[in-house]
């Protein structure tokens, strides 16, 4: 119910968000040989975003590539019979490898805490 209420509040702005998304798609479609990041940066600046805000777009896009790469690693692991859980075990092990015990504890506790608090992230 809360989600529906928020959507109703957002609906008045939806066309604007939609227009932004459409304009980005159109500029990318019209310039198939151009660098995507450069096109998005140019459009963001046209919308009046600051240099810092434009940097955030580049950082988000760099992270999206990392998501894809990590997901592909899991897809490949599944092909050789690994489960999701065993893949996660290896990844976490790599994550804390070489760290001092105190740091390991912080990392593991934070991951566990974040996972257990998805409910608080639902709204």
């Amino acid at each position: 119910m809360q989600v529906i209420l928020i959507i109703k509040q957002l609906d008045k702005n939806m066309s604007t968000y939609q227009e932004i998304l459409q304009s980005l798609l159109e500029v990318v479609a019209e310039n198939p040989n151009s660098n995507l990041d450069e096109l998005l940066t140019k459009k963001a600046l046209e919308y009046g975003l600051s240099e810092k805000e434009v940097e955030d777009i580049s950082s988000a896009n760099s992270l999206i590539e990392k998501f894809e790469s990590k997901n592909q690693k899991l897809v490949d692991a599944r092909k050789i019979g690994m489960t999701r859980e065993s893949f996660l075990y290896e990844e976490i092990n790599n994550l804390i490898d070489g760290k001092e015990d105190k740091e390991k504890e912080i990392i593991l506790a934070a991951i566990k805490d974040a996972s257990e608090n998805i409910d608080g992230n639902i709204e």
Partner: protein
Amino acid sequence: MEFNELISKTATVIDTAARVKEVILSSELQEVGDAAGKDEVASISVNSEKANQLLESLVSSKSDTKLSKIVAAATKIADATGAMKLAKNTVFDIASMSDETVTRIKVAYQVANGEIDIEDAVDKLIDRAATRLITISEVVINKGLSMAVNTLSKVLVSAFPQTAPLIPIIKTTVAILQPKLKEIAQKGISAVAKHAKNVAHKVISWAKNKVPSFAKSIALKFA
């Protein structure tokens, strides 16, 4: 407790959280999806033929990140200009929301086209959330760890995007697809949502056995 045991428990917690989140999100998408077809926003599609062709190729592509990047840029611009203010708008939040949006649409497309079955589809979405958490952990930790557990946890939880802003973003992205493609995406999203909702109790039982500390609050949502 040995670190090996702690790591094992942490892996289980992530797996469980990703399963539970998928059920919750799909449940919300189903409720909103039922009304989406009647929404005027859903009847507006991109006018440019070239943009439509681009969209179709991006939605049908399995691993291309271009559409996620475009959605991320649109989300950031919308937030910065006030078109759609987000309660959580860090780089991690925006990247995760965009990734989730586009993954969900692509998976829906594959389901509706018979390329993957419904169980594989739900699995793909769970995989994606779990690997996002690992990726964000790597990025944050590689920058140098100088934060307390609760501060780090607040960053990491962005791997599981908040439902409230995510649904309008998914809805709008689907809305701009040309009618035929939109119908396919909506059909797939609806199918995945129904399936995930059907297995909610199975997931809750899994959570109860694996991580009882947070299964109870999740179960209440489906009581």
